[in-house]
């Protein structure tokens, strides 16, 4: 079993991270469009999307029987399935893989839920180290406003209601996201995350991203596929 950082593949892996409402998914979508137009073989993979464990995750969330440990392990199972069946083979084949959330999401959430910091990092040690990991840094109130304006409410686990932080879902969501934000800040130096100021105009953030991605892809010309 190869560990984080030991993998060497022809493909490239770019990931976006940040709290809910940081705008990371929008940025990844724009990057995806651009890479496709440039003629790269691009594949997108989303957090918590493996069909293999979907029913199990749904069952746990619906019945609200997930604890910090099972919440963590079921998401690790989901991630492992995508890693083994999707991300690894694609990187071996020379694709550009884009991930909306990666292991850092688990590190943030699971540690805030009380799981041991080193335990979670070791659990995900089979993951491939990204070519670049973009962290969209945003103040809590800005992210909260984006989320709460656009939706009718937040879900139980999303708001961290299982932690008993507050009876009020919105208040709980705020406290929970704030703690995750603190975890992200600690991870920036630990994992050398590329920080993007998520309060800037969307197109400004995007051109910064493209600049970095372009530089990384320049070292790997053979990725380009014929249109």
């Amino acid at each position: 079993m190869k560990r984080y950082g030991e993998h060497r593949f022809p493909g490239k892996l770019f990931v976006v991270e940040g709290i809910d409402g940081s705008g990371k998914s929008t940025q990844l979508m724009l990057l995806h469009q651009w890479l496709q137009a440039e003629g790269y073989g691009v594949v997108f993979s989303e957090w918590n999307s493996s069909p293999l464990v979907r029913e199990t995750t749904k069952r746990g969330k619906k019945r609200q029987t997930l604890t910090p440990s099972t919440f963590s392990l079921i998401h690790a199972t989901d991630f492992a399935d995508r890693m083994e069946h999707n991300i690894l083979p694609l990187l071996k084949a020379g694709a550009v893989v884009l991930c909306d959330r990666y292991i850092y999401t688990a590190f943030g959430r699971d540690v805030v839920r009380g799981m041991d910091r080193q335990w979670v990092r070791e659990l995900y040690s089979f993951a491939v180290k990204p070519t670049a990991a973009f962290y969209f840094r945003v103040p809590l109130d800005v992210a909260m406003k984006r989320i709460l304006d656009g939706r009718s409410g937040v879900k139980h686990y999303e708001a961290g209601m299982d932690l008993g932080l507050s009876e009020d879902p919105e208040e709980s969501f705020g406290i929970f996201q704030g703690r995750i934000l603190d975890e992200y800040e600690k991870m920036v130096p630990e994992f050398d995350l590329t920080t993007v100021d998520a309060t800037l105009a969307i197109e400004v953030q995007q051109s910064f991203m493209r600049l970095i991605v372009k530089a990384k892809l320049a070292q790997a010309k053979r990725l380009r596929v014929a249109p």
Partner: protein
Amino acid sequence: MRETYAAPLPGMNLAEMTGKLIVIEGTDGVGRLTQIRLLRPWLEQQGRAVLDTAIKRSELAGKGIQQAKEGHTLGRITLSLFYATDFADRLEHEIVPALRAGFVVLTDRYIYSLMARAIVRGADARWIRNAYGFALKPDAIFYLRIGVDDLIPRVVFSRGFDYWESGMDIHPSEDMYDSFRKYQTELLGEFERLAKEYNFEVIDATPDVRTVFEHLRAGVARVLSGEPREPLFSIPTAGGESLEAATKKVLEMPAPAKPAAPAAEEPAPAAQPLARAAEGDANT
């Protein structure tokens, strides 16, 4: 105070788990389930409440693992983590509450089988030990030891070779027999390493069911009486009756009515006549 191998789970209070956690380990088809079916009524007869649990029985992940395994598309790391999810769910929702309530928890396999399987499939030994670091240390681990040559006839003449128990996922080019032999040999080797590391109490599983049960029962009696392992003079038997008499009584007992267990979804397996019980453990 109970201990864990590494950091405990958040919110898990390790004090006041007055019950006993007894693990029955061993490879596929060695007769673990048969022995648990004998142990349970024997313990209940002495007034001990028993919870029995096994891999894949969790409310959360049991069904998902079953479905995933039917597809044969399960990656090795994914499979290990799916099992870890199942284990964590049972630990928090079944095992810990039962230990707090003073039950004897008999678990058919524990983290050791899961680690052995993962390691044989190429998982990093350090990684899998970390994954299960939150597990409670049991009061005793009884390992039913058998050699591959004694194991094969048992499996052939009961339920036959199973895809996963034959490691067909890692030796796909072989026929079932060759694959089973190769895979189980590797697995048994890994069990021996774990036996040393985790201080298993080894029980020879090659004799008949009754003999194995006598040894196991003596070991369990010792754990429950709180005596240290390997007593100087004799193995104490619970209730004062002779080992032979107690064993005979249990083996001839009718099935118990309805054993009490917290959160027991499936009916607990009743004591089977020996011929049937020897069919083996089709629960992996």
